[in-house]
Structures are given as structure tokens and as C-alpha cells.
């Protein structure tokens, strides 16, 4: 664009990964998005819908009713073989040994030797010889290389199969909101019995579908993995029962309000999970060794990961500097919260800063006041700060 300076905060995280790419990758739902008139953007090398009209209306639909997202750009990887549990115990910062019920999921991260985050992920325990890992879109190739290198190094018998191409290719649709489950059951009545008593963070195979009680919005709902050839029919069936299509714009404000980290913004290979609010998903207590553990133990926690609510008028954005009585910090994710109707942010702040403190954020040279909060702003339809 000539003249006007657009800074698209949503894409900055991953845009470096796709520079030089000639063709954008498309999900199996690309034509469906275009038919709905979506505004498409380059997200980590993928041609994805940022919104289908009003991003704020899409956000409210998920908090108040029901919306759906195409998350087929994320990469599901089946890890199968006799060595798989040993592999994941060493690869992942949380302890997959805790997963004993088939279908149970765990959120965690893979670290490098320096304790930086290679990627955050969800791992499902399906059996002692079969786990499914879901990794981010923009980091998928890097992650697969990383995992293959560790497998070679550790000489373990595990086969990694990304469910991207060929007969195993899948699409993924996240249906989220207080009415999400009822809408899914309306479209897939055969799935109700298997999913109505499913606890949080569980997945279950229902025929050709893998239906999980996971999400990235802070609302109830399902993430449905569907054979690629059937994804568009499922998307259209959900549209017909009134599920609102939602783009990556609303997905970003929903996850921000829910206090969920975004890889590439809130943490990356140079950031320790302990400094990014992810200590809860790092297991340092057991005897188990994992990649990055020694570095985490040696360095400890250097920063706090907290929320900010802007008290003055403006919009908090990633990379703005935060001045506190204890020193300088930085916003890692910031936007306008449609639920709270104020600007909120996630920030890396010096140790010693406390919830309830007032700090100053540098926005275009002006120091504006912000309140330090818990790093969770809204979930289940309600504001929490």
C-alpha cells in the first residue's frame, strides 16, 4: 500500500517464515472461505481468512453463541511405535507419563537445549504406542525436522506421520462458544453419545472424526479433525445450523482475552517457558530428563508474565515498552478486547511487579497508564478483570 502505513499485528509473528515463498499454502476449506467473501491474509505462508466481515461480531458470536474456525493449517502428526512414550518423555517439557486414559490431551512445549521454546503443542495419548501431536502451522516444518533429529540421536523406533498429504490428510474445524456442542450434535447426532460426557482436554474417535474438547478461545466447544475430503461438507453443515464462520482476527482477540499464548509473539526459541507464563506446563519435579531441563534449572525464572489493562485511551500492541518501578518490560501481545471494551495485553515484566500496580506504556512516544492484572481477561462469556 502506498502512503498509509498498515502494521498488521496478527501476521508479524510468522511472516518471516514465509518470505520468498511464491505460492501460499491453502487449506481444504479455502474455496469455502472465498465463497463466503472472507478477507484473506498470508498467515505463516498460509492463505487464511482474517475475517468474513466484522471481526468484533465474530468475537462476540463465540463468547455469546457459537462460531467456527478453520484450523486446518495447524499440523496433526501421528507418532507411532514402541519407542514413542520414551521419545515424548524426553522431547516435551511436561510429563506425558501423566497421560493414562486414552484420548487425554496435554498442552506443553518442546524446548531447545538452551531452554527456549521450539514450539507449543497439544499431545493426545491414544495408546502406549500411538500419540497424536498438534503443532503450529508456521513452525510445522521446523518442528518435524527437530523431532526427526531427536529420534535419530536417541535411536528410537517411532514413525512420525504428518496428516497433511495423501489418504491420511485431514482438515480441522474448531467450533467454539456456549452453544457449540449443541450445534455440533445437531449436525452429528451420532457423535453425541461419545462426546457428551467427555471431560475437558480429551479427544475421542467417532467413526472417521476425531472430536476433542480443546480450543483456543476460553469457551466450551470441540475441535474436530475430519478426513480432508469431508471437511467442506462438515463446514457447510455447521453453517446451515447457524454456526458463524470466524477468522483469525477474532481467534487472536479471543485467545488474548483467554490469556493463551501465541507462538512467535509471547514466546519463541529465545524465550524460556518460565518467563512466558508457561511454568504450569513444565514438569521440573519428576526425575525425568528432557531437552532444555538443565537450562531451565540453571537459569530459573527471570521475568513475570502478566496482564495489562490500559487505563488511558489507546491500543496496546506487541513490542511496546512498559516502564515499572522495578525496571522495563515489554508487551508480547496486545489488542482491543471486544468483551471488556478496553485495550488489554500480555506482557513480560520484571520480577517484583505486582497485580494492581499501575505502570506506563510507551505508545508512539506518549506514556499511558496501565493496570497490571492476572494474564486472563475473559472466559466463558464473562470478563474476569
Amino acid at each position, binding site marked *: *500500500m502506498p502512503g498509509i502505513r498498515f*502494521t498488521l499485528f496478527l501476521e508479524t509473528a510468522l511472516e518471516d517464515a514465509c518470505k520468498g515463498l511464491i505460492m501460499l499454502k491453502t487449506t481444504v476449506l479455502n474455496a469455502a472461505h472465498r465463497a463466503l467473501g472472507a478477507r484473506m491474509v498470508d498467515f505463516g505462508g498460509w492463505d487464511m481468512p482474517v475475517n468474513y466481515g*466484522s*471481526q*468484533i461480531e465474530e468475537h462476540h458470536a463465540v463468547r455469546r453463541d457459537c462460531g467456527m474456525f478453520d484450523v486446518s493449517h495447524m499440523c496433526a502428526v501421528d507418532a507411532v511405535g514402541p519407542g514413542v512414550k520414551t521419545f515424548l518423555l524426553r522431547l516435551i517439557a511436561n510429563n506425558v507419563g501423566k497421560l493414562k486414559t486414552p484420548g487425554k490431551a496435554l498442552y506443553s512445549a518442546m524446548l531447545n537445549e538452551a531452554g527456549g521454546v521450539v514450539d507449543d503443542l497439544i499431545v493426545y495419548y491414544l495408546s502406549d504406542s500411538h500419540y497424536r501431536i498438534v503443532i503450529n502451522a508456521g513452525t510445522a516444518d521446523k518442528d518435524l525436522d527437530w523431532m526427526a533429529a531427536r529420534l535419530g540421536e536417541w535411536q528410537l523406533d517411532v514413525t512420525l506421520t504428518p496428516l497433511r498429504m495423501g489418504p491420511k490428510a485431514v482438515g480441522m474445524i474448531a467450533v467454539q462458544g456456549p452453544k457449540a456442542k449443541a450445534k455440533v450434535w445437531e449436525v452429528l447426532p451420532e457423535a453425541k453419545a461419545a462426546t457428551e460426557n467427555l471431560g475437558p482436554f480429551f479427544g475421542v474417535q467417532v467413526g472417521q472424526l476425531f472430536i476433542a474438547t480443546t480450543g483456543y478461545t476460553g469457551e466450551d466447544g470441540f475441535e474436530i479433525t475430519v478426513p480432508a475430503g469431508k471437511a467442506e461438507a462438515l463446514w457447510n453443515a455447521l453453517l446451515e445450523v447457524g454456526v458463524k464462520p470466524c477468522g483469525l482476527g477474532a481467534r487472536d482477540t479471543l485467545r488474548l482475552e483467554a490469556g493463551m499464548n501465541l507462538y512467535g509473539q509471547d514466546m519463541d526459541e529465545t524465550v524460556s517457558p518460565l518467563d512466558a507464563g508457561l511454568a504450569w506446563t513444565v514438569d521440573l519435579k519428576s526425575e525425568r530428563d528432557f531437552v532444555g531441563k538443565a537450562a531451565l534449572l540453571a537459569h530459573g525464572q527471570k521475568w513475570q508474565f502478566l496482564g495489562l489493562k490500559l487505563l488511558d485511551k489507546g491500543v496496546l500492541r506487541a513490542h511496546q515498552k512498559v516502564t515499572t518501578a522495578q525496571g522495563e518490560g515489554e508487551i508480547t501481545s496486545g*489488542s482491543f478486547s471486544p468483551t471488556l471494551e478496553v485495550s488489554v495485553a500480555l506482557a513480560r515484566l520484571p520480577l517484583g511487579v505486582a497485580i494492581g500496580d499501575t505502570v506506563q506504556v510507551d505508545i508512539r512516544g506518549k506514556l499511558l497508564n496501565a493496570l497490571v492484572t492476572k494474564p486472563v481477561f475473559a472466559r466463558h462469556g464473562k470478563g474476569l478483570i
Partner: protein
Amino acid sequence: MNIPAELKYTASHEWVRVEADGSITVGITDHAQDLLGDLVFVELPEVGKELAAAQETCVVESVKAAADVYAPVAGTVTAINEAVVDAPESVNQDAYAAWLFKLAPANAADLAGLLDAAGYKAAVDAA
């Protein structure tokens, strides 16, 4: 694309209406609001501020992006539309009604350098 024929434009997506008294009223175009998405914050200049042509004058921010608004020509800010500060979404609803500021041009001849509707459309299509 909604580009009213009676207005003037800049390649940086401001619209300009030349008033009877020679002052100009400035806003952002419908195309600009469409690119930005839902606006949530508008920061206006101070009345009396003197601006050079193409100087950053104020900021509009949507949920996902921030954009600078530039002075179409050199001049002095004579009025600002406080209503859009309280209702940034009014720019999305009607970009040509929700003006941002009025300017007394330093030199009326500078207005001849602005784009007409066809020129602006060509600039957008070329981008």
C-alpha cells in the same frame, strides 16, 4: 468500491471535501476502513496545529492494525470531530460522514495536486 465523485483524494487514502469558505474536511476512505476492519480508537490532532503536507496528523486503530492519517496539504487544523473519538465504529459505518478534522490550507493552489475519484481508483487498483 465507494468513491464519491464530488470529493478529492490522496494516494494515502484520505478523502478531502473542499468547503465554500476554502477550508477542507478530511477523513479516511471507505477502502481504507475496509482494509483496517473494525476501528476501536481514533486519536485526533489538536485544533490550531500547523501541518506540513503529508505530515502524520492523527492515528486510527482497528482491532488488528494501526494507521497514520496524513495532512493532504499544508495548513492549520481548525476543527476536529470529537464524535468519532467516542464512536470509532462510525468510520466503518460511513467513512464519508465520519470526518476526522478540518484544515485551513496554507495555499489554496495546493488543492489542485489532489486526486479526483478516477485518479484515486486508479491508485488503489495499481496497489
